[in-house]
C-alpha cells in the first residue's frame, strides 16, 4: 500500500512538471518508460470507471487488453446490472472479487484512491462529473463530446488547466495511422493553402414516437440518471438511445463532432481556435420523444478565411469523414482506413524532418496510460476536444435560432445576440450545479 501511494504522488508531481518545460524526473524507474516486459502489479496505473454502459465497457475492455498496464479497482454506474457486469469483468481480469462498486459517483470519488478514471456517460452529466473528477486531481480518460453546452466545456477546460492532470478524450481516430497521415499531409501544405473543409457526419435515424410512461426497472436509479437534466417520466429509453434527445445530447451531430471535426481541426491547425461565424439549418422530427435534428447543414467561417461545412453525410459526395480542400487539391479521410486525394501522388509525399510531425499514437488507451506514467500530454488533450464540440454546439445554436452566430473564439462569447448567448449554457435541476474550478 505504501509503495502504491508513493507512486501515485509521483505521477501527480510529474503531471505538474509537464505544465512547463517537460523534464523527465530522474526518479522514474526504467520500467515505467520502457514499453514491454512484465510489469509488477504495483507499477500499474490504478484506475476506476464511471459509467459502465456500452462505451464505458468498451473502454474498460480496451484498457484491460493492454495487459498489466492498468488495474481497475472500482466501478460506478446508476444501473446495477451494468455495474455487476463491470465488476465481473474486472474481477475476472484481477483474478479476485475485490472490485468495489458504487451507484453514486460522489461516494466513488470520495472513497477511492486512484491515479486515473475512465468516464463514459450521457453528455448531460459531463459538466459535473468531469469537473469533479479533475478537481480531485485524477487523470481522466473522458468520452467525447466532452460537454453538452459551451459553458460546461469552458468549466471542464479550466479545471483541467488548473489541476494539471493528464486528459485523454475518447477521440480514438487520432490514434489511427491513416487519420494522422491525412492530417499531417494537410498541415504540411501538401494540398496548398486550405480553403474549405467538408465534414460529413451520420444522418439521424428512425424515431420511436412517444412510448408510454412505464415503471422504472429495479436496477435503474432514474433520478440519478437524469441528474441535472429536467425531470421527465421513464419511458423505457435511457441507455445508448439518450443520444436522440436534446436534453442529453445533440444527436449524431454532437456525437460525431468529437471525431471528424476533431480530425478536420487537427489537419487545418484549428485545434486551439473556433469559427467567427456560423450559419445553417436543421431538419427536426415532427413527432415523438426523439427530437434531435436528423439532418443538419451549417457553414463555419474562420478568421483566417477557411470555411468548414458540417453536414449530414447523405448530402455530400464524399459522404462520411473529413475532406480538406486546398488550392492544390483535396484529401479525404474516413473510418475503414479510407484516405484518398485528388491526386494519388499527394498520398505518397514524404514529410521531411523539419516539417510538422503530428503526435503519434498507435493505441489510444495505451497512449493515455503512458502519458499518465510519464506525465506527458496525451494525443487528445482537453482543448482540441472542446474546440471540436464547440463547432457542433455553435451549429446547434445557429440552427435553433435560425440566425448567423457571431462567435469570438478568443473570449468565447457570442456577439450581439442575447437569445443565442443564453443557449451557451443550461441551468441545472436542483440539487445539481456546475462545480466551481
Amino acid at each position, binding site marked *: 500500500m505504501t509503495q502504491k501511494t508513493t507512486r501515485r504522488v509521483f505521477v501527480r508531481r510529474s503531471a505538474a512538471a509537464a505544465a512547463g518545460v517537460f523534464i523527465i524526473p530522474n526518479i522514474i524507474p526504467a520500467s515505467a518508460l520502457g514499453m514491454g516486459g512484465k510489469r509488477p502489479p504495483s507499477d500499474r496505473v490504478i484506475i476506476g470507471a464511471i459509467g459502465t454502459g456500452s462505451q464505458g465497457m468498451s473502454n474498460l475492455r480496451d484498457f484491460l487488453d493492454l495487459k498489466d498496464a492498468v488495474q481497475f479497482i472500482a466501478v460506478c454506474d446508476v444501473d446495477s446490472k451494468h455495474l455487476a457486469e463491470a465488476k465481473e469483468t474486472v474481477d475476472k481480469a484481477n483474478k479476485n472479487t475485490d472490485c468495489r462498486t458504487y451507484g453514486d459517483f460522489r461516494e466513488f470519488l470520495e472513497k477511492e484512491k486512484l491515479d486515473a478514471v475512465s468516464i463514459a456517460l450521457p453528455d448531460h452529466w459531463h459538466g459535473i462529473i468531469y469537473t469533479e473528477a479533475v478537481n480531485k486531481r485524477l487523470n481522466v480518460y473522458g468520452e467525447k463530446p466532452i460537454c453538452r453546452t459551451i459553458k460546461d466545456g469552458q468549466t471542464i477546460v479550466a479545471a483541467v488547466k488548473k489541476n494539471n492532470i493528464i486528459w485523454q478524450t475518447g477521440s480514438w481516430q487520432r490514434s489511427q495511422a491513416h487519420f494522422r497521415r491525412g492530417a499531417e499531409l494537410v498541415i504540411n501544405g501538401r494540398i496548398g493553402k486550405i480553403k474549405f473543409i467538408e465534414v460529413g457526419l451520420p*444522418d*439521424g*435515424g*428512425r*424515431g420511436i*414516437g*412517444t412510448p*408510454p*410512461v412505464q415503471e422504472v426497472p429495479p436496477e435503474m436509479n432514474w433520478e440519478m440518471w437524469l441528474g441535472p437534466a*429536467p*425531470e*421527465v*417520466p421513464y419511458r423505457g429509453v435511457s441507455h445508448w438511445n439518450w443520444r436522440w434527445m436534446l436534453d442529453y445530447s445533440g444527436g449524431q451531430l454532437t456525437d460525431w463532432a468529437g471525431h471528424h471535426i476533431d480530425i478536420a481541426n487537427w489537419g487545418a491547425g484549428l485545434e486551439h481556435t473556433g469559427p467567427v461565424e456560423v450559419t445553417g439549418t436543421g*431538419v*427536426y*422530427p*415532427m*413527432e*415523438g*420523444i*426523439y*427530437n434531435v435534428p*436528423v*439532418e443538419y447543414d451549417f457553414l463555419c467561417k474562420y478568421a483566417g478565411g477557411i470555411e468548414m461545412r458540417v453536414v*449530414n453525410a*447523405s*448530402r455530400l459526395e464524399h459522404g462520411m469523414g473529413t475532406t480538406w480542400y486546398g488550392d492544390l487539391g483535396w484529401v479525404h479521410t474516413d473510418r475503414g482506413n479510407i484516405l484518398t486525394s485528388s491526386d494519388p501522388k499527394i498520398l505518397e509525399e514524404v514529410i521531411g524532418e523539419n516539417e510538422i510531425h503530428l503526435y503519434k499514437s498507435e493505441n489510444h488507451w495505451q497512449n493515455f496510460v503512458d502519458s499518465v506514467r510519464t506525465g506527458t500530454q496525451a494525443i487528445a488533450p482537453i482543448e482540441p476536444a472542446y474546440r471540436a464540440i464547440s463547432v457542433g454546439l455553435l451549429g446547434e445554436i445557429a*440552427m*435553433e*435560432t*435560425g*440566425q448567423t452566430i457571431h462567435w469570438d473564439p478568443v473570449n468565447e462569447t457570442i456577439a450581439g*445576440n442575447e*437569445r443565442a448567448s*443564453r*443557449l451557451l*449554457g*443550461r*441551468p441545472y*435541476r*436542483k440539487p445539481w450545479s456546475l462545480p466551481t474550478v
Partner: protein
Amino acid sequence: MPSCRKAPQYKALIITGQSDHNWGVSSESLKQILDETDLFSSTIIATPSKGEDMSGFKPDFSKYDLVVLDYEGDAFSETTNASLIDYVNNGGGLVAYNSESNPGAVVSDSVKISERRSFEVRTAQIDHPVTKGLPVRWLHPDDVIVQGLKPAGEDTRVLATVSLDNSYFSTGRREPVLLARNFGKGRIFITMIGTPDDKENNALHCAGFIVTLQRGAEWAVTGNVTQEAPFDFPTAAGAVLRPGFKSITYEEVFDNLGNYDIEKSTKYFTYLQSQIRNAAGNEKTLLKLEKKMVGILKNEEASDDAKKLILRELSWMGTDYCIPAIKALASDPELSDDVEFALARLK
C-alpha cells in the same frame, strides 16, 4: 392564410377514367392537393370506360397551364395524343401520376410491383427546385413501388429513389419514384408514389407525397418553385400524414397547444419551434409568438405539460414581456422547477 387567398394563378386539368387503382379516389385527392396550394384551380375529366370508343375524347389542353395524368388504360386517339405532345412541346406543364406507362418520360423493362409497405425515400438531386430545401431522407408509408423503371433519356433527372432493401444502410438497387423531364419548351414531373389502397390511403395522405406533388406541379408550369419547405415534411425519423391533405395552421396550433400532455402528439409544439426558428431573430415575429405563449401560461385551463414546454422555449427566446407570467407560476409545485430554469436563463 384564408383571409389573404388570391385567385389561383393556374388552371389544371386532371385526366382520369381508367386505371389499376381506384381513380375516383386518386383524382379527387389530386384535385384537393393541387387546389390546397392556392396556385391551382383544378378540373377533373374522365375518359370513356375501358374498351369504349376513345375518339370523342379531345380535351382542349391549350386552355390549361397544367395537365395531370391519373390515367392508365386504353390509348388516347392519335389526334389527342398529338395535341398533348404539342401542348408540352409548346411549354405546357405535365404531371404524370402513378403510372408505369407514363407518357414518354420513363420506359420500363421488366416491371414488377412491390408489396404494400413503408419505404424510405432518398433525394437523388438536392439542387432541383422540387427537392431543394427538403429533407433528403424521409419515410413514406403504406405504398406500392414499381420496380424496374428507367429514366427515358438524358433530359430526365431522377429526383428521388427508394430501395426495396429498406435497411438503414441500404446499398441495394434504387428505384426512381420522383422524376423530372424537360420536353420541348415544357416540363414533365412524374411521381410514382401515392397509390390509393381503399383503406386509410396513407400513401396519398403522406406529407412527402403531397408536398413533392405540389412542388412538382408548380415546377412543371413555371420551372421554379415558390412554395416554402413546410415544417411537417417527413424525415428519416418518421412518416407524417396530412389528414384532409391540409397542413396544420397557425390558429390550430395555438388552439391545441394548451391541451398538450406528455402522452399526446408533439406536432403542435414542433410547429411552434419551427415558427421560432423561421423567425430568425425577427423581434416583431418573436414577440407575437411570445404573446401567444404567455397566453397559454396564463390560461388556467392549459395543461402543466404544455406550460413546461412553453417555459423551456421562453427560457431562451423570451423577453421582459414574459417574466411576470413566468413568475406568477413559481408557487405551482408542478411547475416550480421549470419556472426556476426559465428565470435562471432569462436573467
